[in-house]
């Protein structure tokens, strides 16, 4: 898990959420690139973030793309967060004895714009939360940082300021995450993405 590195934070607000990740692509301590976000969009109101072995991240992303396309063709509607989460857990547990080395975290808004935040381990065990979730190489320190700065019922602007300061604080003390950050702010009005400057060391 500490080979490619990376960190992701999700914070929930009032009928909206923000998801942020760093942009580093590295092999142990060698930084190969600084334009690799680890957040993928399933549809406008559902985002998934994955940290772990980059090869497994690509594989799972492609499998999920296939399954969600088949679902939306059959049902003529977008997949809901709760259903997607169960599908992902099933996919991960399918490889119980040779697992994908990937930790995932989901954030979405369902049809009534209720918030859905859930993190999973490598075998697909669900762990829902109502405020924030973090995964990655500095997830322990990020949990402490987010606990201090998170407030309930924030709007999008406050969410952006909070999540970007938490991400920068966590990345400053970690060798294998960093080199820039990207934040997606999602509400019923759409998605706004911003890139944040961090220390490049």
């Amino acid at each position: 898990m500490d080979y490619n590195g990376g960190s992701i934070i999700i914070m929930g607000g009032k009928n909206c959420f923000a998801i942020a990740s760093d942009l580093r692509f590295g092999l142990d301590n060698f930084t190969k690139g600084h334009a690799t976000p680890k957040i993928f969009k399933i549809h406008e109101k559902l985002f998934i973030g994955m940290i772990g072995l980059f090869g497994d991240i690509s594989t799972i992303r492609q499998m999920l793309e296939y399954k969600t396309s088949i679902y939306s063709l059959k049902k003529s509607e977008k997949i809901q967060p709760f259903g997607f989460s169960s599908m992902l857990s099933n996919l991960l547990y399918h490889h119980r004895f040779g697992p994908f080395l990937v930790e995932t975290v989901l954030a979405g808004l369902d049809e009534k714009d209720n918030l859905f935040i859930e993190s999973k381990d490598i075998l697909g065990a669900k762990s829902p939360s109502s405020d924030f979730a973090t995964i990655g190489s500095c997830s322990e320190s990020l949990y402490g940082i987010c606990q201090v700065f998170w407030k309930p019922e924030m709007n999008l602007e406050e969410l952006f300021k909070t999540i970007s300061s938490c991400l920068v604080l966590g990345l400053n003390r970690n060798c294998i995450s960093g080199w820039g950050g990207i934040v997606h702010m999602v509400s019923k009005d759409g998605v706004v993405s911003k890139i944040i400057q961090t220390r490049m060391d």
Partner: protein
Amino acid sequence: MQKNEISIGTTVVAIEIQDGVMIGTDSQTSSGPLVSNKISDKISYLTRSIVCCRSGSAAQTQNTIDNLRSLVLTNLFERKFPLKVQHLAQIFREYCYRENAVNSGFICSGWDCFHGGQIYSITQGGYIFNQSIILMGSGSIFIQGFCDANYRLKMSELESKNFLTKALSLAILRDGSSGGFIRLAKITKKGIERLVLNPIKPFYKIEVQQIPKFILV
């Protein structure tokens, strides 16, 4: 080495300049993926004009340097003239070879009145060699090509300061275990002068204009 023992993944560049020696290091100490110290000083003083840069396990290198400082004092009492850099480097080598100090590398450099500025590198296991430019640490592999292309013998002080700043900024950008700011030390017959700099902007702050669209699907 124990898991998550504090180790100095680092970048150190030492070059001979016109009147002496100039050394540059980064300032980050890491323990596994955690940055334990962002403002560490990897240049340790041995005498008034000889310094030592350490890389590898922090505990082992600090212990070796403490033992060597007491050896230096014993030697000073026995002689009338100041210690030669070559002599001190050989004491280092003998100590590292006998104690079999694994996972530690040193650069012993300084100025003496016999041969001017000199740099000696003592690698793991106790091999010593002398060159005009020596790179050490985990981040040094990323700037080997840069140093091969841009280094010239006996540069002036300003040119070598620019060279060291650029080289260290590039290593800090690429190496995960190097970071923080740049510490420079210049050793001439006047003694040791220290300087602290930030990594330079073109390499340090890179604007990411557009994330490729397919990554977001």
